[in-house]
C-alpha cells in the first residue's frame, strides 16, 4: 500500500500531469501525421524524459505511445491513409463512413474504442504482469539467455518480409551491443583501439543516440522522396462530438471483448505488434457481424463496428505489449523496445526484482498509463477539429524539425560534456544513415534495436550459463524452461506467419473504395 501511495503522489503531481499531457498532444499529432510512427515519437522524446524524474519522464513516453496509436486513426478515416501501421484496418470502414458524411461519428467511435481498448488492456497489464514477473524467479543464466534469444528471434522473423533479413539485422544489433568494454574481463572491444581508446567511443555506443538515429534521422532521409509527392486533399468539415449510442455499444459487446483479447494477447507476444492484431480483430468482427443479427451492421460496409474492432485492438496492444516488457525485459513491439531502452537508461531492470523492490515504479507505470489513456480520450474528444488540421502540415516543414530534434536530442543526453555530446550526435547521424540504408535494402530496423538492447543480457547470461555447465553448449536444451522458450519461439513464429498470411487474405477482398 505504501508503494501505491508513493506512486500516486508522484503521478498526481503537477509536473507529471503536465508532461503526460504534453506527451499525449505530441503523440496524437505524431500519430496523425502519415509516415511518423509512435516509435519515432518515443525515440525523439527520450532525451527529454532522460532529464525528468521517472514518473513524468516515463509517463510522457507512455502518453506519446498511446496518443500516436490512437491518433493514427484520424488520417485513416479522413484521408484513407493510415497514420502508421496501427490504423491499417481502420481505413476500410473509416473512409466509407467519411464518404457517407459520417466522419464525426467515425472519429468519435475511434476515440471511444481506443479508450476502451486502452483501459481494458491496462487491467490485463495490472493483473498479469506481476504473475509473469514472479515466474522469472525460476530463471537462471541459461533461461535468461534463451529468453533474450527468443525475443530477438521472434522480432527478427516478424518485423520484416523476410526472415533472413530480420536475423541479419538482429545479429548486427548484437555486434553493436558488444562494442565497448567486455563486461567480464574489462578488455576493450572497439575497432582501432589506438585511435579511439581516449574517446567516448571506448565505452561503446550510447543507446539513446542509436535509437534516435535509427528512428528519427533515418526517417528524414527516407521521407525525402515524399516531398515532391502530390499532397492529398482533405476537406475539413465541421466536426461534432458524435458517439455511437449506448444501445449500439451494448450490441457490440462481443466485438469489444474479442478485440481487446486479441490486442492484449498479440501485444504480449514479443515482436508481434498492432499491425497483426488489427487485422485479426477486424476479421473476427466481420465474422460476428456477418449474420446482421442483434442490430449489428456488417463490417466492410462503412459502419461503426468496422472502426471499433481495429481501434479497440490497436490500443489494447499498448497494455499487452507492456506485460513482457516490464515482467521479462522482452519488448512486445518496436515502441516498447524503445520504452525498455528508456527504463534501462534510468537504471531500472525489468523482471521480478522490479516488482519486488521497486513496486512504486511499477504502480507509477500503471497510473501514468491510465492517465495517458484518459488524456487521449479527453484531448481527442475536445480537440478533434484541431488534430484533424494537423494532417495538413507540409512535410517540408516537418522533416527539418524532426532532423534538428534528433540531433539536439542526441546532443542533450550528455548534457554538460561538449566532446561526448558531439560524439553522441555523430553516432546518431551515423545510425541514421545506417537505418536509411537498411530500409532501402529492405532490411527491418526493429531487430537491430532489440539486438542493441538485449545484447548485454544475452552475452552475460550466455557466457555464465556455458561456464556453469562446464563448456556444455547444449545446456539450453537440457533445462526445461530454456527449452520451453525455444519451442515457444518456434511456435509463435509459425503462428504469426500464419496470421500474417490470413491478414493478407482478409485485406485483399476488402480494398476500400475511396470517395
Amino acid at each position, binding site marked *: 500500500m505504501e508503494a501505491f501511495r508513493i506512486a500516486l503522489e508522484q503521478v498526481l503531481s503537477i509536473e507529471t500531469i503536465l508532461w503526460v499531457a504534453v506527451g499525449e498532444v505530441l503523440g496524437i499529432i505524431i500519430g496523425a501525421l502519415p509516415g511518423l510512427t509512435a516509435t519515432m515519437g518515443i525515440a525523439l522524446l527520450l532525451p527529454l524524459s532522460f532529464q525528468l524524474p521517472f514518473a513524468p519522464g516515463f509517463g510522457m513516453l507512455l502518453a506519446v505511445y498511446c496518443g500516436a496509436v490512437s491518433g493514427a486513426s484520424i488520417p485513416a478515416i479522413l484521408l484513407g491513409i493510415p497514420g502508421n501501421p496501427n490504423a491499417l484496418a481502420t481505413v476500410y470502414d473509416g473512409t466509407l463512413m467519411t464518404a457517407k458524411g459520417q466522419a464525426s461519428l467515425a472519429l468519435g467511435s475511434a476515440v471511444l474504442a481506443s479508450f476502451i481498448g486502452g483501459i481494458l488492456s491496462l487491467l490485463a497489464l495490472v493483473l498479469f504482469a506481476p504473475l509473469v514477473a514472479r515466474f522469472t524467479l525460476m530463471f537462471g543464466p541459461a533461461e535468461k539467455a534463451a529468453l533474450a534469444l527468443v525475443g530477438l528471434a521472434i522480432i527478427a522473423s516478424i518485423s520484416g518480409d523476410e526472415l533472413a533479413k530480420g536475423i541479419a539485422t538482429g545479429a548486427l544489433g548484437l555486434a553493436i551491443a558488444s562494442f565497448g568494454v567486455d563486461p567480464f574481463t574489462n578488455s576493450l572491444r572497439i575497432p582501432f583501439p589506438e585511435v579511439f581508446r581516449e574517446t567516448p567511443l571506448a565505452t561503446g555506443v550510447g543507446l539513446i543516440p542509436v535509437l534516435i538515429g535509427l528512428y528519427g534521422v533515418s526517417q528524414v*532521409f527516407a521521407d525525402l522522396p515524399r516531398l515532391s509527392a502530390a499532397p492529398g486533399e482533405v476537406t475539413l468539415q465541421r466536426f461534432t462530438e458524435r458517439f455511437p449510442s449506448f444501445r449500439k455499444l451494448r450490441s457490440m459487446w462481443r466485438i469489444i471483448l474479442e478485440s481487446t483479447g486479441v490486442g492484449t494477447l498479440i501485444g504480449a507476444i514479443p515482436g508481434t505488434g498492432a499491425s497483426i492484431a488489427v487485422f485479426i480483430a477486424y476479421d473476427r468482427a466481420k465474422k460476428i457481424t456477418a449474420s446482421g443479427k442483434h442490430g449489428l451492421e456488417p463490417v466492410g460496409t462503412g459502419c461503426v463496428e468496422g472502426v471499433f474492432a481495429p481501434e479497440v485492438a490497436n490500443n489494447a496492444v499498448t497494455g499487452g505489449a507492456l506485460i513482457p516488457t516490464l515482467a521479462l525485459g522482452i519488448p512486445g513491439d518496436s515502441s516498447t523496445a524503445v520504452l525498455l531502452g528508456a527504463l534501462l537508461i534510468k537504471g531500472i531492470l525489468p523482471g521480478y526484482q522490479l516488482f519486488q523492490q521497486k513496486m512504486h515504479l511499477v504502480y507509477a507505470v500503471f497510473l501514468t498509463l491510465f492517465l495517458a489513456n484518459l488524456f487521449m480520450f479527453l484531448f481527442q474528444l475536445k480537440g478533434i477539429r484541431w488534430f484533424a488540421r494537423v494532417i495538413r502540415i507540409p512535410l517540408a516543414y516537418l522533416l527539418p524539425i524532426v532532423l534538428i530534434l534528433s540531433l539536439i536530442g542526441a546532443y542533450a543526453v550528455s548534457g554538460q560534456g561538449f566532446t561526448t555530446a558531439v560524439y553522441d550526435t555523430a553516432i546518431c547521424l551515423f545510425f541514421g544513415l545506417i537505418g536509411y540504408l537498411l530500409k532501402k*535494402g529492405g532490411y527491418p530496423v526493429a531487430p537491430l534495436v532489440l539486438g542493441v538492447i538485449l545484447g548485454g543480457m544475452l552475452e552475460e547470461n550466455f557466457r555464465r550459463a556455458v561456464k556453469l555447465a562446464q563448456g556444455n553448449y547444449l545446456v539450453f536444451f537440457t533445462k526445461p524452461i530454456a527449452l520451453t522458450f525455444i519451442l515457444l519461439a518456434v511456435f509463435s513464429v509459425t503462428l504469426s506467419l500464419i496470421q500474417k498470411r490470413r491478414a493478407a487474405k482478409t485485406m485483399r477482398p476488402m480494398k476500400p473504395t475511396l470517395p
Partner: protein
Amino acid sequence: MKRTGNRRNLWGAAGMVLAATILISYSLTLEQRRMIGDEGGHDPGSRALPLGSGLVMLFAGLYDLGKQIRSPKKQDHRKSSRTERGLFWGTLVGSILYLFLLERVGFLILTTLFLFLLFFFYSKEAEKGKEAVKTGKAGQSGEAGKHLEAEKDIPLLPHTPAGVAIGVLACVLVALCYLAGRIVSRELFYWGRSMGSPVLASRTVSVLVFLLMSGSIYLGALLIGRRIAFFKVRSMEWSVALSVGTALALFIVFRMIFRVALPLGILDL
C-alpha cells in the same frame, strides 16, 4: 523501374555480406580473454558475441544474396531524381557541417541557418507536387504518396541574392531575440540577488522573462514583415518564422529549462 528495385535488394544483400565479413575479420583481431576464475577455460570468451554475430550475419546475408540472385523480388522502386539525390547529400553534408561548426558559430545562429536552408529547399521541392496537382498530373484527389516527375529539376542554390539576404536576416532576428531576452533576464537576476529577492533571481523567472522578451521581438518582427509585405514568397516567410521559432524554442527547453550546455558561439558575450 523494376530493375532499380531488384538491384537495390541485391546491393543490400551484398552490403550485408560485406559488413559481416568486416565484422568477422575485426572479431578475429580482438584479444580473446576469459573471465577471472575460469581455470577450466569454459567461458566462451570476449570474442564470442562479436564473432557469433558476424557468422550469423554472414549466413543470413549469403542466404539473402543467393535468393536475390536466384529469384529477384519484383519491387516497384522508382529511380530518384537529381534533386532528390541533391537533397539527400545536402542534408547529410549539412548535418555533418552543423556538428563541426556548432561550437564556433553557436547553437542559435547555426540552428536557425541550418533550419532556414532545409525549409527553403524542402519547400521548393514540395512545390513540385502542388504544381503537378494544379496541372492535373496527380490524377484524382487523395492519391497522396504518388510520386511525380516534374518538368525539370529545381536548382539547389538560391537563384536570387534575396534568398541569402533573408537567411542572414533570420540569423540577425534570432540574435536580437536572444540578446534582448538574455540582457533583461540577466539584469533582473543580478538585481534580484542584490535586492535579496530569491523570486527574481530564480530560474523560473529568468525563463519567463527570456520567453517574454525574445517572444515579443520575434512576433513583432514577423508582424512588421507581414505588414510591409517584406517577404514576397510565402514559403520564405514560413522558413524564417519556423527556423527562428524552432531554434528559440529548443534553446529555451534544452538550455534554459534542462541546463544542457548548448554552445553560444559568437553570441557568447
